């Protein structure tokens, strides 16, 4: 037989790796690219196809012998151990079927991709199904069978398939969906529960599409996916989320979400409720926040938010807001900042809680604690007095009376008896002082009333008129007739009396005594100041003891060390306080602070 050798030679330079074989499957020619493709030496003489592909099936050879085209993908192990997938295409080279050209293509990459896709399908537990309505056949892929937990030789039909769906709403729904799909070609995609052959309940995703010709559904095909774990996680997440939501709602917690990059703040409905504002009335939520926050807290709170964004300090703070009706609420705020991989903050989520009621309780508790502490202090003073003043007088009496028994002169005896009398009257006086101290109880505010100041001072001056005239003191009262302070009237009188008599007692003998009483009304408190030009006191030395019981500071025989102690107690019982400024030989000024709105001084 004649051979067109030039034609055979033409493949020598073919870019596609290929060989030409004769009818006996003996290689007669090959392309140069083939040597490179199979990594063969250049001067090699090829004869048998099996030199190239050891595993090429005899069947393939037979096909070539029968002059048939064929395509096969064959795995080949390289000399260096690598696996390659080679697609072999064989077709007759010339019309007479004398020679065949076989070309090779490396499809390793495609094959791997395909495997990966298969694997992904297995991992994702995606199966498929088709229904041939004409022949009434249902086909399930292996994965679909695995999901149903049936063996691979299970033969499904439409009825069996549908009966896997859980009785009740799941089965009813799939019946309806399939019927619609058959009737009108409407696709479906639904998450449903099946009960597998082994009796397990499973969430699946069923997707179905209709095959239609001439407006008639001839078949259905679809995808069947096991979504059980995802679905259950989702259900659990929703359940937890719902529980959290209930917790947040009942705890009166508002949640906000701040997009730092776009400067966009979102509030949930609870936040609007907490801040007592209408959602529609504001354009920007941040402006709204700023507008409601108490002016005294604004700078600090904004600074703390900034610090949180900069990662310096977590946000966990409290501030006050002013509601529309003017009332003040205390807000507790906590937040978390989210940073991107570069460490830049991009989002901040926080929670706000109205802690006003807690705060009030806390304040009341603190107030009670304060009262208790003061009572304790008074008790301590009381025991100090028991220890000192009572004992000093009683020990004098016992010492003197004991000595009366010894042989003393009649004069001395008389003197001792007089001293015993003095001691016992001192004892009596001490007990009176103690009584006064005990009487000043902490008030709960009910006894505190608006009391006119000037009238009260004038009454006090009137009551000690003789003393004032004797001291030739010049008293100036620069107080408006109408001024009133929150006070307990008898205490207020007692305070004024004490300060006035102190000024007279400790006047500078070289100067005319001048006393000035003034008042200053501030927003929260009224301050009444008592100034004199008396001998004053060295506060560096005595400042701390100034208002303690039985502390005296001058060599004055009249000094008892009780007046300022009682004055301080009176002021505190009226929720006020007393302060002193003084310089030796310059005079003293006492400032009396009264609260204007029956709240505690801090």
């Amino acid at each position, binding site marked *: 037989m004649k051979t067109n050798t030039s034609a055979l030679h033409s493949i020598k330079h073919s870019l596609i790796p290929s060989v030409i074989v004769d009818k006996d499957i003996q290689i007669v020619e090959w392309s140069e690219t083939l040597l490179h493709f199979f990594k063969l030496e250049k001067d090699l003489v090829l004869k048998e196809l099996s030199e190239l592909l050891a595993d090429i099936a005899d069947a393939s050879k037979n096909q070539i012998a029968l002059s048939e085209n064929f395509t096969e993908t064959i795995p080949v192990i390289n000399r260096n151990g690598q696996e390659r997938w080679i697609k072999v295409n064989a077709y007759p080279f010339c019309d007479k079927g004398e020679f065949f050209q076989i070309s090779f293509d490396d499809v390793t990459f495609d094959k791997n991709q395909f495997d990966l896709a298969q694997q992904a399908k297995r991992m994702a537990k995606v199966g498929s199904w088709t229904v041939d309505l004409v022949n009434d056949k249902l086909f399930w892929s292996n994965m679909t069978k695995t999901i149903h937990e049936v063996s691979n030789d299970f033969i499904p039909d439409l009825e069996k398939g549908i009966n896997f769906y859980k009785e009740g709403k799941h089965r009813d729904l799939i019946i309806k969906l399939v019927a619609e799909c058959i009737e009108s070609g409407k696709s479906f995609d639904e998450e449903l529960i099946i009960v597998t052959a082994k009796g397990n309940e499973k969430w699946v995703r069923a997707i179905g599409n209709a095959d239609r010709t001439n407006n008639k559904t001839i078949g259905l095909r679809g995808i069947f996916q096991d979504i059980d774990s995802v679905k259950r996680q989702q259900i659990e997440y929703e359940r937890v989320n719902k529980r959290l939501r209930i917790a947040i709602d009942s705890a009166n917690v508002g949640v906000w979400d701040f997009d730092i990059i776009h400067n966009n703040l979102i509030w949930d409905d609870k936040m609007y409720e907490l801040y007592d504002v209408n959602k529609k009335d504001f354009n920007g939520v941040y402006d709204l926040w700023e507008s409601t926050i108490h002016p005294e807290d604004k700078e600090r709170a904004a600074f703390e938010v900034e610090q949180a964004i900069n990662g310096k300090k977590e946000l966990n703070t409290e501030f006050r807001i002013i509601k529309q009706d003017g009332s003040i609420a205390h807000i507790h705020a906590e937040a978390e900042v989210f940073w991107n991989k570069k460490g830049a903050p991009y989002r901040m989520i926080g929670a706000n809680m109205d802690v006003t009621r807690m705060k009030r309780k806390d304040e009341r508790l603190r107030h009670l604690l304060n009262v208790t502490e003061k009572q304790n202090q008074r008790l301590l003073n009381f025991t100090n007095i028991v220890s000192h003043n009572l004992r000093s007088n009683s020990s*004098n009496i016992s010492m*003197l009376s004991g000595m009366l028994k010894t042989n003393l002169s009649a004069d001395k005896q008389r003197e001792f008896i007089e001293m015993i009398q003095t001691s016992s009257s001192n004892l009596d006086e001490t007990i009176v002082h103690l009584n006064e101290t005990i009487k000043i109880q902490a008030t709960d505010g009910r006894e505190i009333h608006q009391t006119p100041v000037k009238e009260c001072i004038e009454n006090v001056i009137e009551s000690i008129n003789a003393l004032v005239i004797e001291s030739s003191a010049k008293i100036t009262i620069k107080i408006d007739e109408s001024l009133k302070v929150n006070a307990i009237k008898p205490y207020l009188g007692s305070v004024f009396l004490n300060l006035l008599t102190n000024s007279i007692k400790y006047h500078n003998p070289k100067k005319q005594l001048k006393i000035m009483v003034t008042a200053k009304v501030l927003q929260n408190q009224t301050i009444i100041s008592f100034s004199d030009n008396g001998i004053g006191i060295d506060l560096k030395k005595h400042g701390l003891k100034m208002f303690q019981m039985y502390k005296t500071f001058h060599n004055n025989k009249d000094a008892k060390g009780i007046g300022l102690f009682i004055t301080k107690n009176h002021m505190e019982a009226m929720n006020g306080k007393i302060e002193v400024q003084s310089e030796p030989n310059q005079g003293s000024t006492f400032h009396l602070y009264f609260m204007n709105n029956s709240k505690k001084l801090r």
Partner: protein
Amino acid sequence: MTTNKIFLVDDDLIFRKAATVLLGQELSEFDVEHFENGLEVYNELIELAEASEKLPQLILLDINMPVMNGWELLEELKSAPHQIRQQCQIYILTSSIAPEDMNLSKTYEFINGYITKPLTSEDLKRIAENLA
């Protein structure tokens, strides 16, 4: 040497009078000088320290006094001429029975004793033994 002097420091006149009579009975060889507070006795002691033989042998010191109390005086004496601390026997004589006061007195090395009122002749006899 020191003189036969006792400094009685107390703001309570009645106590001073009664104590003086008692001291006259038990320590008759001594002269008793009265001081009403810590500052008065401090000024006197500082003056006497220059001629140390004039310092008193015994100081009876009350705690609760105006102007300068007993503790304040003791603090001042810490940095005063050492003759005062060495030559004078100092007894605290107080109506306070508070343990704090008693403990505080122990922190001063130059204090010889702590006596609670009323002062008795037994107290003075004990002091006399130490003076001899």
